[in-house]
């Protein structure tokens, strides 16, 4: 093994995370049975709420690592959610629905890619356009496909949950993991894969170079434009998948503007996670946990109900505190700067 590749600081961090998970599991094991069930529900809800955030956040990471700001995730997620539901509705196959969502997500992001990479447009303007376009088009198509306003017809063939009957009787693991969506598991897999792709493959190196120092990449004989474009398309694919999780993984219908700002929260998760795969995973899980805390408090601590709105606000306040006071997130250097060959000055 090449020891120089190992960042000792991150090794300690990994150890700390693993240790806290083990300690948490042991602590949960000593709790009364009812409380274990509640903890299990909290873990399950955290995973459900985090999945769309992490998937879209990882997508945003691919795009921004390549130097293209992609604030259009919200619009792409909506298109993914719509396509997933529509394909699953007509083809009666959820897997085709997911595939369609990934493809349409990628296609939608490629509009952003062409505008930003080929025509060197302003990333924020183009991204805002993608949000508006995605929101409007998905709403319009909702009415065209199902002749309904607001919410489409329920999809009966949704992505089947994985069942682990062996866990069902355990007070904590039962509610937490006995019924779990394959997309949730895929979220963990894709995080690992993203880490490998980004830091251990030539493509990842090129993508990061395109975001940090595109002229070096260019002088190495690699097309900056194509590298960046591929990064944007991957971001669309993942955001589309995240949207499809909402419509055919967790829910069972497409509803107008069903992402409710999750695309923006996933951007925050990406920044909070410092543009690294495991950082995005951790930040997404953290946000998912805070969102499910909001539900948890409402259901189990009615005494705190008057503060429900305050609690709903907490994630955003915590992010501001964390980013402003504790740690600076460092974006890729050449982000949002169009690359021009032999630029003067």
């Amino acid at each position, binding site marked *: 093994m090449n020891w120089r590749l190992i960042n000792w600081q991150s090794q300690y961090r990994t150890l700390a995370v693993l240790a806290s998970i083990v300690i948490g599991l042991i602590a949960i094991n000593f709790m009364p049975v009812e409380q274990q069930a509640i903890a299990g529900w909290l873990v399950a809800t955290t995973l459900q709420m985090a999945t769309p955030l992490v998937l879209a956040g990882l997508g945003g990471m691919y795009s921004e690592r390549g130097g293209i700001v992609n604030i259009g995730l919200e619009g792409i997620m909506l298109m993914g959610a719509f396509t997933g539901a529509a394909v699953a509705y007509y083809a009666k196959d959820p897997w085709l629905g997911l595939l369609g969502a990934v493809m349409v997500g990628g296609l939608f992001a490629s509009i952003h890619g062409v505008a930003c990479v080929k025509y060197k447009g302003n990333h924020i303007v183009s991204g805002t356009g993608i949000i508006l376009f995605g929101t409007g088009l998905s709403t319009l198509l909702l009415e065209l496909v199902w002749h309904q306003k607001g919410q489409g017809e329920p999809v009966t063939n949704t992505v089947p949950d994985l069942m682990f009957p062996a866990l069902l009787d355990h007070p904590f693991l039962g509610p937490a993991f006995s019924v779990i969506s394959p997309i949730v598991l895929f979220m963990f897999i894709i995080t690992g894969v993203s880490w490998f792709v980004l830091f251990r493959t030539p493509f990842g190196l090129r993508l990061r170079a395109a975001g940090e120092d595109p002229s070096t990449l260019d002088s190495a004989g690699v097309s900056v434009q194509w590298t960046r474009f591929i990064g944007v398309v991957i971001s669309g694919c993942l955001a589309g998948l995240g949207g499809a999780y909402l419509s055919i993984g*967790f829910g069972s219908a497409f*509803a*107008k503007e069903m992402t409710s700002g999750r695309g923006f929260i996933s951007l925050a998760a990406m920044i909070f996670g410092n543009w690294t795969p495991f950082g995005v995973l951790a930040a997404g899980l953290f946000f998912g946990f805070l969102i499910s805390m909001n539900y948890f408090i409402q259901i189990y601590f009615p005494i705190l*109900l008057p503060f*429900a*709105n305050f609690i*709903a606000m907490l994630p955003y306040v915590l992010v501001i505190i964390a980013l402003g006071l504790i740690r600076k997130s460092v974006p890729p250097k050449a982000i949002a700067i169009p690359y021009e060959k032999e630029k003067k000055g």
Partner: protein
Amino acid sequence: MASKGTMAALVIIIIVVAGAGAYVVMFNPFGTQTRVAVVFATGGLGDKSFNDGCKAGLDLAVTDFGIAYDYAEPTAITDYEVMLREFANSSIYTYDLIIAIGFDQEVGLQIVANESPTQKFAIIDMFIDPIVYPNVASLLFDEHEGSALVGAIAGLTTTTDKIGFIGGLDIPLINKFGAGYIFGAGYTNPQLNGTVNILANFTRAYTGSWTDTTSGQTLANGMYDAGADIVFAAAGRAGLGVFDSVKAKNVTSSVPLWCVGVDMPQMYVGTADPETPVAPTLCLTSMLKKVDVAVYTIIEDWVVDGTWNEGYDLLYAFNLANNGVGYEVNEDLLTLDPSIITAVEAFKALIIDGTITVPDAIYWT
């Protein structure tokens, strides 16, 4: 080849003629139909409850009275004032009546009603002082009475003696639903009566949005997992998430789980395929808030008959006595036990004759 000037003139003529044609086709300015304008609530059409109910009333008025209506679907509270003013000052039509749907249009409506004193307005779910604003009719519902009836059904049906309520926002209007619901449940089920029991066996939560179905679904999941077996949602389109939740959770649950619909008859949404509803349904009943009747009534009174009340007669109340609220019975999808119906009808009679007063705000702390 004609000269450039001729070509330009031709193009201009074509555009003008086409524009005028489109204008006539789209807006029919020569028609003398009476017109009504509607500004919907932010939940928007397609919630299968509140806004769709208002639209059903309008559609019925179109068939019965031959009126026409235009509508706007705002997406934010700030849109209300702009859209109301647009209709009030419309240069294309004079609207006989502008209907504002939803409590949160209060401020916008007051401003616009002040600006256009000759224009008649109506608002659903909010009290606007008819002495100050003699051109605004308020259509008000006693939602707590209808909710008490579905609560009574829930209290008799529950097997775990735990029930839940999901609201859109933590506001007095929505808490009217929740308070009536638990009051009715407590009337028929001693396990849900009294402050101690309510705190132990009744969960309420709020989605914080009228549109976020995912949030409604997650909250309902949590309530079913916490032991509640009947969840009543009054959260507009966000409440539709509860139907997803009950369908998913009922598969693995050891006790039968139910949800309760709101505003419109929603029992069909609880079936496996709502397009062609067949029994069984997982929606026990629906609390009916007949906004369609309210919209229809005000159109009939003013637009058709030309009666505009004065003073406190401008407040239209819809309650159990005049059948403005109620509960859904759909024998095709689900037959409730006759003893439940008898008990609920007896409870209803007591509310109507005033023996029982249903609380309209949270009465336990």
